[in-house]
């Protein structure tokens, strides 16, 4: 990535503009993070509540730079065979079978054991070679000729051991394969790690990353996001619905509605041809915003007041 020239990444401003052209409205801070990640060749660790656009950031960066996005979804029990590489056992087995058949030809004319071994040594061994290597996302990202965006999603869901596995990749952009040696990245990929903070990540991992915390956006920013994602929504309704979601976020809920929910809600309101919020409408579409029955019940009594507050002006 870094030996190439990306005018899109020349400054914080140009990154912001670039993102906007792909419908990703971001704060200065996010753009600064991307700028620094590119300049300093450091991974970004993106934290924040679910649904604020952590994964989207990586996707948009990949669109902006027109580089492939390689995604690794983390989960408990994820190990190197699924994340780094795996040997193609089947083919390796076949190879040994073929080798056995060819062994006679190969060793023809040798007289004693020492000579046969000598001959065998001269014979190039491809048993453990890249040909039998099945690359998994992390290795794949290293092998991309033109660089890649590597997204390691929800790294907090993975095991502690897996984190240590990532350290070599994150700091040196290389992977050690015991049988072959070290595979260095052809072009340094840009790495995004996302975390929902279900557990504390190790200091070693955090130290290698730029730390970006994306909070819920301000009313103004969220309105711009809605404008770019759901452009057909009437301006007044847009303001009202964003205000409404913001007041919902102040409440004590199990799952606070995020940006993605606001977008979904804006879309559903559009489909219903609504031009302003009223109680009936909100009540019938609230399940788009709130994903738990408890939350819907909890807001029910205050719904009227909330709507009155948001539609006042």
């Amino acid at each position, binding site marked *: 990535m870094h030996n190439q020239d990306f005018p899109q990444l020349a400054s*914080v401003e140009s990154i912001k503009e670039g993102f906007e052209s792909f419908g990703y409205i971001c704060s*200065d*801070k996010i753009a*600064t*993070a991307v700028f*620094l990640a590119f*300049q*300093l060749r*450091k991974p*970004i660790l993106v*934290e924040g509540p679910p649904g604020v656009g952590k994964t989207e950031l990586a996707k948009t960066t990949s669109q902006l730079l027109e580089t492939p996005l390689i995604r690794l979804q983390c989960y408990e029990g994820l190990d190197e*065979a699924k994340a780094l590489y*795996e*040997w193609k*056992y089947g083919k*390796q*087995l076949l190879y*040994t079978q073929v080798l*056995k058949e060819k062994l006679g030809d190969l060793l023809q004319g040798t007289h004693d054991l020492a000579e046969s071994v000598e001959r065998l040594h001269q014979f190039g061994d491809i*048993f453990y070679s890249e040909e039998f290597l099945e690359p998994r996302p992390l290795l794949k990202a290293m092998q991309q000729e033109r660089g890649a965006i590597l997204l390691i999603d929800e790294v907090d869901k993975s*095991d*502690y051991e897996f984190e240590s596995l990532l350290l070599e990749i994150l700091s040196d952009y290389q992977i050690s394969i015991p049988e072959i040696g070290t595979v260095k990245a052809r072009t340094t990929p840009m790495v995004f790690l996302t975390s929902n903070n279900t*557990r*504390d990540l*190790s*200091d070693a991992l*955090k*130290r290698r990353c*730029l*730390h*970006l*915390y994306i909070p819920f956006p301000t009313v103004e920013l969220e309105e711009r996001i809605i404008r770019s994602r759901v452009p057909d929504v009437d301006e007044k309704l847009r303001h009202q619905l964003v205000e409404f979601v913001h007041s919902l976020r102040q409440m004590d809920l199990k799952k606070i509605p995020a940006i993605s929910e606001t977008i979904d809600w804006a879309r559903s309101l559009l489909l219903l041809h609504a031009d302003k919020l009223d109680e009936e409408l909100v009540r019938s579409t609230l399940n788009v915003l709130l994903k738990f029955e408890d939350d819907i019940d909890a807001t029910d009594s205050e719904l009227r007041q909330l709507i009155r507050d948001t539609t006042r002006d």
Partner: protein
Amino acid sequence: MPDSLVSFIQVLRTHDVRISPAETLDAMHVATTLGYSDRTLLRDGLGMTLAKTPEEEAIFLQCFDRFFDRQLADFSEEQQPDEQSAVEDNETDTASTPDQDSSESDTTSESSPLEEAAQSDPSLEELMQSELMQALMNNDRNALSLAMTKAGEAAGLQQIQMFTQKGQFTRKILDAMGEEQIRKSVIELERADSPALSELQRYRDILREQVRDHVESQYLLHAQGKTQQFMEDVLSKTRLSNIEHTYLHRVHDLVRKMAKKLAARHSHKRREYRRGQLNMPRTMRAGITNDGLMFDVHWRRTRKEKPQILAVCDVSGSVAAYAKFLLLFLYSLQDVLPRVRSFAFSSNLGEVSELFEQYPVEKAIELVNWKYGGATDYGTALTDFANLALDDINSNTTVIILGDARNNKGDPKLEIMQSIYQRSRQVIWLNPESRRAWATGDSEMQRYQSACHFAAECNNLKQLERIIDQLLKSTR
């Protein structure tokens, strides 16, 4: 600039943000990449490398503002109310009409009474020419803040530790900056009842206020962290029963911090091999080197079942304070020790785990104390415990008992302790009394000790932390 970045990082460290040398280097790179011209940009960039959690980020932002805000508040704005009051003063004081000119002269560039007075007074003239007065009169905040910082460094302001030192440092800095001259002139002008007096007084007040602000912000920057560290250090070594009520919230924070440290250290989950499920890919892979013969078998690994902890706490008057912290500790460690069941007793014993599920830890502890506090009877308590939980104790169970083992001469029911001892993985007894007191009076500690794997004296946070650290090590 790199120097000030390094001392900024030093400040962050005293505020409990952990920053490694590698991160310092990163911060330097960030600063050179982003440049120093855009303050917000620099702040965002540095924040990303130096602060690793939202809490640290909050600290970072606070420190950044204090540290890099050498730009002083614009005191030309502050003059407005000053002038107002000057005008009001004049209205009551009819004698000094020329003063009104002085307040106007700031906006118009006519010569002020101060300058007029200076023409007839050589010492005042000299003062007017000094850098300090020039900076004040021209509203040159940069020069003023530079002089202040320099004077502050010379006075060793960064070493400030106690708030009582603030006045002393303010004086030192003022002296170093040459405030004495202004003071003298003010006295002289006062004696002469000169019209220039109020103007000079105003400059003096501005200067004093600026220096005071500077010292204040430096105190917050440098001393606050140190004082806090000092406090925490002392608190962790004080007997828990002696900690005054006002410091309790700090202790809670401290316990949480310690718990977090322990949790991080022990969150590494160990796996063990359990025969039963074959791991086919690994076995095949291992078999390839043997010509496809799979005699080197590999098994799927499964997670070890998490151990169970039973905490039995004496909450009678003498031990309640300690029980509180043990429970606070255990429940703060829930991420690492997910199965803690707790029991409380004085004479009767009951399970209180539910309270901890329903309420926040502090509230739950209060309720426990209220419900179970009273006179101690270990015999009854142990019988109750056996009825409630003895069947659940197995080789995965650790039983922690916190109590002073003072049984008021009652029946100790040692046989129950012995059956707990035999069934469990380990029994730990924590006694807040010092070891010397264990065999005295009505203490049954020596007898109970015979049915414990481990008995320890535990009366401050340091000891508690050490014991729980050991507990975590041994239960995993």
